[in-house]
């Protein structure tokens, strides 16, 4: 074996420590693959995607995207005959795609102008428009094209045990947190009527007007709606190829009929589509995910659905395995909005192991705002999420509200304090308990109510007889009992407000205002939709602005404190044994060290940021000085609160030319006469980490420098988080010190204390 080969071998055997650590990171638990168009594994640009084109004759589309009508599949026919606005197709197709892309970004072009043109665009044309855009431009477009001016969010509420009291409590909390819609589903299909009832009662306890749904098989879903237990449905899946559509056991016509069936019972409908589903089903027909999604969206529009949940939804990990996948998902949200569809923009299924990657992706929808930022924010912990786990869950509530507060962006979740949450949860569980008692369902015990009020997950709930619940749910579904019986039961048991809210949901169903695009209810059952809350964005100062009462509410997170009493611990009465005696003079004693303190030291402030007594700190410093056989002089600097200036002045006054300069918050420097103010012998900026032992060592080192020695600098453990935790306190302590700054010469202090050495 040659030497070169040996070297190569040993190099490949020994791993880089850094690369080993990187390999263990969350981001490297995901799968990344190259594009493969033939397998449908390409997000926005497949060489097999058709080019835009359209030919009309006798008021009928004869050719679309390079395909003759004779070769149209069912989806092509549906799009051509139901979705395209033939009055505008010629103009739209003749307008250069890059021009429409620019209109999306141009603040001078209002939403309706683009919406009109988009109505005449074929699937390939829609793709050609958004392909020209980077994510920033897409976000600009999304902010303008979003159907409802006011953004909102949707929650998922489920639990593994199907515990009704916990479902009601979690729904109440989610409603109180501001979610405009709450969706549940089942682990066991037969639990559906009870789960739907539990989140309905919970949601209306938390906040009247929250729309709710239970994701189950269509026939059952419709029955729940008719009974008044749900008010919307969104699991009507559509696909971008005929074969995957048929594999999903539907056609555009069957889905459109179903949409009308739901609407006929007063139930809001949203379709579901998204990048990757066709590839996952094996029928992508070599096309890009974006092109297939454009077809889905036109089918959705053609069917008359008011909206769609897209953004890949449960397939999200597939586009994210590919280059540009997150951009493609944003592109499909934008397409939905361009077409006038309410968009619940994904951010629901678990998309990454990496918190950084999840958050980065979220920004694409959160910052522009969508009709529902998440098509299901898991308002419960992951283990209770029967949709397969959420990308963001109950443990991320505070992260979310802080991000909203940071950016002054409304992501549809309100801050909530613990007492309000527990009270609403308890009331919801009690309301459901009352209904169960009145309607003869298996009783909800007091201990279940109390556990639900304070629970985090179903692990915190007592056991419950699920078999009995399922049998009762069957009977409830089969009986004539309906929303009105639930309302009456609540009323009889004294839950008037919950009863009134439930009844109001029924009354609103009679009016049907929430069937309009992107409709939700604000507080007080005031409907907001694309009809009366139209997105009028035309640049800065227009469109939705987070301001006024809503901004006040979103910034008021329970963790927020008043800064006014932040430094109460440091404020006190002047130290009785630290007296000012005369203006300080330049010392002549080569064995003296000056300890120069800031204007507030021992006067208005009496403790360091680490809450060490100023008196004890002075004692420690002077003890260190004395240990080296030196004498310590204490001087107060008045003209500056700056640590460098205090140390510099001290050194000028020191007989040895060495001084310790110290601010009231404890930041310390060892300074030598003649050095520039911002140069020094040793600097201790991390005042919260300084201990009395360290101050004593600082005193010792100061004296050693004065002796002409070269001591080992005092070691202070670096605490990376100190500045992060204490910056507000630091600011306020410094502000207090600067208040004591005066145009006055340094003063000699008498410190009544003798070192014990």
């Amino acid at each position, binding site marked *: 074996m040659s030497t070169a080969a040996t070297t190569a071998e040993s190099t490949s055997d020994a791993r880089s420590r850094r690369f080993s650590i990187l390999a263990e990171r969350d981001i490297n638990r995901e799968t990344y693959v190259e594009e493969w168009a033939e397998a449908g594994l390409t997000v926005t640009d497949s060489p097999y995607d058709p080019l835009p084109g359209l030919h009309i004759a006798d008021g009928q589309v004869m050719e679309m995207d390079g395909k003759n009508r004779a070769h149209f*599949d*069912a989806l092509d*026919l*549906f799009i051509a*005959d139901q*979705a395209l*606005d033939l009055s505008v197709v010629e103009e739209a197709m003749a307008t250069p795609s890059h021009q429409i892309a620019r209109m999306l970004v141009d603040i001078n072009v209002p939403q309706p102008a683009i*919406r*009109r043109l988009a109505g005449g665009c074929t699937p390939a044309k829609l793709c050609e428009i958004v392909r020209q855009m980077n994510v920033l431009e897409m976000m600009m477009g999304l902010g303008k094209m979003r159907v409802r001016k006011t953004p909102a969010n949707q929650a998922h509420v489920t639990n593994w045990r199907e515990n009704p009291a916990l479902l009601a409590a979690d729904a109440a909390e989610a409603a109180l947190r501001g979610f405009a819609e709450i969706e549940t589903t089942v682990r066991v299909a037969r639990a559906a009527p009870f789960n739907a009832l539990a989140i309905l009662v919970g949601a209306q306890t938390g906040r009247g007007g929250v729309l709710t749904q239970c994701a189950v098989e*269509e026939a059952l879903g*419709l029955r729940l709606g*008719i*009974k008044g237990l749900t008010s919307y449905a969104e699991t009507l899946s559509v696909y971008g190829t005929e074969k995957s*559509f*048929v594999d999903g*056991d*539907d*056609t555009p*016509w*069957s889905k*459109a*009929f*179903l949409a*009308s*069936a739901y*609407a*006929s*019972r*007063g139930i809001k409908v949203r379709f579901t589509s998204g990048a990757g589903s066709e590839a996952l089903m094996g029928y992508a027909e070599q096309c890009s995910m974006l092109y297939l999604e454009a077809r889905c969206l036109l089918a959705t*529009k*053609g*069917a*008359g*659905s*008011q909206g769609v949940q897209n953004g890949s939804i449960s397939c999200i990990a597939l586009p994210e395995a590919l280059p540009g996948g997150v951009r493609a998902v944003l592109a499909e949200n934008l397409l939905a909005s361009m077409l*006038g569809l309410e968009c619940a923009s994904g951010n629901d299924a678990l998309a990454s192991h990496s918190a950084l990657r999840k958050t980065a992706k979220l920004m694409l929808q959160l910052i522009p705002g969508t009709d529902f930022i998440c098509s299901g924010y898991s308002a419960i912990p992951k283990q209770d999420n029967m949709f397969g786990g959420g990308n963001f869950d109950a443990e991320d509530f505070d992260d979310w509200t802080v991000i909203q507060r940071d950016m002054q962006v409304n992501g549809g979740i309100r801050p909530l304090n613990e007492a309000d949450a527990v009270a609403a949860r308890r009331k919801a569980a009690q309301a459901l308990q009352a209904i169960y008692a009145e309607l003869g369902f298996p009783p909800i015990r007091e201990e279940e109510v109390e556990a639900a009020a304070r629970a985090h997950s179903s692990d915190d709930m007592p056991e419950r007889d699920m078999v009995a619940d399922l049998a009762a749910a069957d009977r409830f579904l089969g009986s*004539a009992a*309906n929303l*009105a*019986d639930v*309302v*009456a039961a609540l*009323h009889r048991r004294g839950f008037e407000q919950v*009863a009134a809210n439930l*009844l109001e949901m*029924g*009354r609103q*169903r*009679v*009016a*049907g*205002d929430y*069937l*309009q*695009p992107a409709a939700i209810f604000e507080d007080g059952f005031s*409907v907001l939709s*694309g*009809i*009366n*809350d139209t997105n009028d964005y035309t640049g800065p100062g227009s469109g939705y602005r987070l301001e006024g009462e809503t901004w006040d509410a979103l910034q008021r997170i329970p963790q927020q404190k008043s800064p006014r009493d932040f430094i109460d611990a440091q404020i006190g009465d002047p130290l009785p044994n630290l007296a000012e005696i005369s203006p300080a003079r330049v010392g002549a004693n080569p064995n003296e060290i000056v300890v120069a303190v800031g204007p507030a030291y021992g006067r208005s402030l009496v403790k360091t940021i680490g809450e060490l007594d100023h008196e004890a700190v002075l004692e420690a410093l002077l003890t260190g000085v004395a240990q080296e056989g030196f004498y310590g002089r204490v001087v107060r600097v008045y003209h500056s609160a700056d640590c460098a200036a205090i140390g510099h002045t001290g050194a000028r006054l020191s007989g040895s030319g060495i001084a310790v300069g110290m601010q009231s918050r404890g930041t310390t420097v060892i300074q030598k006469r003649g050095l520039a103010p911002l140069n020094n012998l040793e600097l201790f900026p991390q005042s919260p980490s300084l201990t009395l032992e360290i101050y004593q060592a600082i005193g010792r080192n100061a004296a050693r420098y004065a002796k002409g020695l070269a001591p080992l600098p005092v070691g202070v453990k670096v605490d990376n988080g100190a500045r992060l935790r204490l910056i507000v306190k630091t600011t306020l302590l410094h502000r207090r010190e600067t208040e004591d700054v005066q145009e006055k010469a340094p003063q000699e202090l008498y410190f009544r204390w003798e070192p014990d050495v």
Partner: protein
Amino acid sequence: MTNNKNGDYPLYANRIDSLRAASGRALHDLSLQATLTEEISSADYSISPQTLRAQAEVARSAGYPQLAQNLERAAELTAVPNETVLEMYEMLRPHRCSFEEYQELARRLREEFKAPTTASFIEEAGAVYQARGLLRTDRF
């Protein structure tokens, strides 16, 4: 918030006096008291075909013609009983029916349920299913 362009939307706020449920019950009579003292059926809190048509008109004037058509089909489907609606949906799923069965379904919608728009929609589906091989087959 309301402007003339939106007609009477929201109907709840602007037309509450004339709103009636599918059963004919006036919205005013759907009260908490009524739930205690009267038999309330699901038709008492179901939307009526008239209201669905009014909402269709709102959608059309706001530039949502397909949603308007959907709401018009929905208005027609209010006449179809729950179980029948589900049966019709099942019939429209791929490979369920013959061409003639779709024609029969359309006839029934037109004559029995006075649902001409939905009937035409079903006929269109039948024709596409025939052209695309989505009619019932005995292959499997």
